[in-house]
């Protein structure tokens, strides 16, 4: 017998799952990504590098900037270009905006309705209007950062190899400093809400992240010794899904907010670090549902860090100068932390500046195996103990905790 989870709601993109029951027992789970393939690697092949980050942005709207930045970094590394601290800080500011926008969307509009038992945030707003409003304020602030750095709320083209089309002004930076401080209060409240929930899903055995907080030169896992993805991650195609599955040394693993906190907690800003320490014991149990709590703590981190960056740039002043980029033959990998985890853009570029090879691995493809494992465990716990409706509902919550981004997950190339 097969229990179908019809297409997930309150997640980004189109996916569903099947629970296979044999002889009255849960035997298997299949996570089916039914979103059609979008062939991004093919799209970029043979393209001039200058146009590529703008196209890669279209992989995903919720984390378009992570895609642009990862793409730009892959290209810069292929050419041996290094950008100064100012440009790095501005990129970080953009990624922070994205973290805020994405986590706020997920926590307040997609997950909170589960907590309060509503079909959606619109209906929840009648009773919990404040919460919804606070979520929207955080999301809007995140989006303003994306617009400022990325050029548009969604799919801006301002982030370029070597710098930006336009740099923020002093007034814009001052505003960020002020607003991030004001919003901090909301984020802290949300940490309390998510800390109070019982865990569910599987406990992840392996965690993966980039070596810096929002990007890195390489990846790290529990041992913390940095490595390239090609050394330890393999991908497989599945007959039932448009997304591939990745494994770390052959095992399912977790990327995202929880993985970041557990592997890089010492890099957090003061208040976020304090909150992390306060809830550390819980988080360290590794239950995938604590990804929600981890995201809430990251809201605090993001707001504190946005303020710090704005202040640093204001103190130093910004020169608004791009680094010149000369194409040459090379290979480079961009590793960025998208809100829902590690994102890899890997390119080989020819001497005329055209893309000769490209590989992209998105966070949801990385978490794919872990989502299945989590569903399997949760289904085993629930099957026979609760009615089917409730089981399906709870399983959907388990999927939602990963904050999966399904559109993102469907285009991995093999050449």
């Amino acid at each position, binding site marked *: 017998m097969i229990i179908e989870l019809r297409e997930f709601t309150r*997640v*980004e993109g189109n996916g569903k799952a099947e629970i296979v029951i044999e002889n009255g027992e849960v035997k298997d789970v299949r996570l089916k990504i039914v979103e059609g393939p979008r062939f991004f690697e093919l799209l970029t092949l043979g393209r001039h590098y200058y146009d590529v980050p703008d196209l890669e942005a279209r992989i995903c*709207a919720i984390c378009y900037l992570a895609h642009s930045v990862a793409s730009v970094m892959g290209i810069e590394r292929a050419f041996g270009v290094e950008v100064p601290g100012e440009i790095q800080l501005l990129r970080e500011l953009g990624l922070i905006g994205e973290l805020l926008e994405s986590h706020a969307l997920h926590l307040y509009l997609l997950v909170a309705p589960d907590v309060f038992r509503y079909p959606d945030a*619109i209906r929840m*707003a009648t009773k919990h209007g404040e919460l919804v409003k606070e979520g929207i304020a955080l999301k809007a602030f995140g989006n303003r950062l994306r617009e400022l750095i990325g050029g548009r709320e969604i799919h801006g083209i301002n982030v370029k190899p070597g710098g930006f089309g336009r740099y923020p002004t002093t007034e814009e930076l001052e505003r960020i400093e002020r607003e991030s401080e004001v919003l901090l209060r909301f984020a802290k409240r949300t940490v309390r809400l998510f800390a109070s929930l019982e865990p569910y899903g599987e406990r992840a055995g392996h965690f993966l992240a980039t070596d810096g907080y929002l990007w890195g030169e390489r990846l790290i896992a529990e041992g913390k010794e940095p490595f390239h993805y090609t050394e330890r991650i393999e991908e497989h195609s599945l007959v039932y899904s448009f997304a591939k599955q990745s494994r770390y040394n052959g095992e399912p693993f977790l990327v995202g907010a929880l993985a970041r906190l557990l592997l890089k907690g010492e890099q957090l800003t003061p208040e976020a670090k304090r909150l992390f320490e306060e809830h550390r014991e819980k988080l360290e149990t590794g239950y995938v549902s604590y990804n929600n709590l981890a995201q809430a703590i990251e809201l605090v981190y993001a707001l504190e860090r946005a303020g710090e960056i704005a202040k640093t740039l204001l103190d130093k002043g910004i020169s608004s100068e791009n680094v010149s980029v000369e194409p040459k033959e090379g290979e480079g990998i961009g590793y960025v932390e998208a809100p829902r985890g590690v994102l890899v853009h890997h390119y080989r570029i020819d001497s005329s500046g055209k893309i000769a090879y490209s590989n992209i691995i998105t966070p949801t493809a990385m978490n794919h195996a872990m989502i299945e494992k989590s569903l399997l465990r949760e289904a085993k716990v629930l099957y026979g103990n609760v009615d089917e409706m409730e089981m399906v509902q709870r399983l959907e919550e388990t999927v939602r905790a990963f904050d999966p981004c399904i559109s993102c997950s469907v285009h991995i190339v093999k050449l």
Partner: protein
Amino acid sequence: MMGKLKLGVFELTDCGGCALNVLFLYEKFFDLLEFYEIGEFHMASNLHEKDHYDVALVTGTVSTHRDLKVLREARNRSNYLIALGTCATHGNVQGSIEMPIREKLKAVYGDEGNPMRAIDSKPVVEHVAVDLAIPGCPYNKEELYQALMDMAKGIDPVRPDYPVCVECKLNEYECVLVKKGLPCLGPITLGGCNAICIKSGLGCIGCRGPLPGEVNPASEYEILKSKGYDDEYIVRKFKTFARWEP
């Protein structure tokens, strides 16, 4: 007052941006809810009413049989269907890879497993009749808001009919094509985005698709050639979001 209009949001294969952009209306989204009741919007709600809709918004391209089924249902169950975003109106980036679907699948997934039933990505407008097409990758959210508000009041929505260039002039942005020699498709691209990319000092990449009517891609082609861009580069640019014929 009359009852509220029923609105459904349907997502086919895409990046999620056009659905997300509806939520990015923020307070205005709640203004819309004074006139509309949402029966289905899977990114935001787990309601699934299978109802009849006064207005259906469809985003994305038809890239699988599932997409086709969803689209046909949306068409059959709605009075007024809006193709929303360049995926739905022109096919966008995933529609631009000129290769048979079998080869594309093979290149991406290898021989290991052949995933399901994909079809060549085509915009919504090539499969069903639509009542309104709002392009943009993503579309300008004000434009959608205005269209929905107009409809709620029984007015036919207005559509922009000028190129991005006009909005550049109105904003007094320096022309990046003439002054900096950057590749900019502004002269032949449908306006309505307020020339937002040129605000960044960069060239329009044509995400709103071609300006219908008297547009002149041939002269744009000549200008780009004179700035030193080669044929292949220009053709690819023209064909990325919509299939412009230079």
